[in-house]
């Protein structure tokens, strides 16, 4: 089934849309949720929540990248769960990712957070400055929460090359934030 056919089912409010969505995207959404939450039950709950939110959002939403759209919902849901669970209950793998990201943030934590729209704009602008390879590696690590080794296997490179790329991207992010005078 193509994305257009699936979206047509959503528009017709045909509940088969959910069955097909689960068949087409269920595995990858579950994997993403597990990567972030490291908890099978919570991940399952997160994926089911994704289907419900997609059902409610389409239409009027008409995503051009269905998989990415659903992944975004799953990711938001997983982060929401993490936020509710509190810092103490986050798994070690996720804590490592958070600490890496913390390295490249300017120390302006008392400043008010940027508006959501502004944040979305500058993060897209930052991603556009990276090379294709660097951007993919950056997103696999900080969007999909993949381990360094998994990224290396995915892109046929060594672990150290992935680490180097991530380090450079974080440095680029810090430079970008300082240059744009973005206070986090």
């Amino acid at each position: 089934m193509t994305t257009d056919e699936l979206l047509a089912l959503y528009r017709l409010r045909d509940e088969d849309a959910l069955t097909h969505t689960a068949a087409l995207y269920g595995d990858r959404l579950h994997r993403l949720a597990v990567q972030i939450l490291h908890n099978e039950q919570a991940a399952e709950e997160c994926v089911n929540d994704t289907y419900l939110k997609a059902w409610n959002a389409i239409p009027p939403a008409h995503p051009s990248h269905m998989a990415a759209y659903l992944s975004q919902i799953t990711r938001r849901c997983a982060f929401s769960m993490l936020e509710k669970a509190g810092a103490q209950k986050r798994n070690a793998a996720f804590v490592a990712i958070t600490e890496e990201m913390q390295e490249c943030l300017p120390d302006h934590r008392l400043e008010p957070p940027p508006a959501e729209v502004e944040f979305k704009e500058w993060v897209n602008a930052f991603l556009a400055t990276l090379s294709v390879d660097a951007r993919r590696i950056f997103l696999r690590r900080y969007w999909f929460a993949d381990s360094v080794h998994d990224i290396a296997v995915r892109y046929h490179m060594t672990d150290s090359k992935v680490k180097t790329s991530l380090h450079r991207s974080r440095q680029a992010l810090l430079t970008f934030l300082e240059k744009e005078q973005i206070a986090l």
Partner: protein
Amino acid sequence: MNAFTVLQSLSDIDPAYIADAEQIPARRFRPRALIAACLALLCLVAAVVSVFTHPAGEPPLITSSALQKDADTDLITVYDGPQYLEACYAAPRDGDVLLEIELTLALQQYEQEDVRYWVRLAIFPKDGCLNFDEAATDAECARLASLGYAVYTHKKNWIGYWGEDKHYTTVCLKMSADELRAFEAVAADRRFGYAFELVHTPTVSDCTRYEIP
């Protein structure tokens, strides 16, 4: 905003970036790696072929151990003996044949193999070295060539300290072990002493094959 919030907010990036990162990339074509692999394979094949399947009538040529490979010729291997083997020899007496140490060791090492040796020949008449006399050297080369030896020469001319013309003819031969061992009995002129040594310079391509006039 802390790192957690930044990571959380990344959810809202352009979906095109997410879709791109979700693609399983095909293994990239890496021309440099391919070229390197092909060259390595070619070298390996060439080495194997040259060692084991040298053309009929053109057995491997052994040169001095001071050289690993002579790129100008189809040399197959080199004598893998002690490096920088030097010795001081007395000029061989008339009719005698001297094989220097490295050549003697190489003959022992390759005794069971069908190889030839790239050797330099110094010819000693009673009063010095024949190689300084162009005409006499040419005559000796002609004699050796007529006996069936593969003789090569490399001529060098220069002006001496007193302005006199100087000349030296380096005589090299491609010889089998049997030819070397039998040289004294078969080919040595009783007026001269002969000294053979393994060399790598001049190479075969540096020299001119001596043709009988």
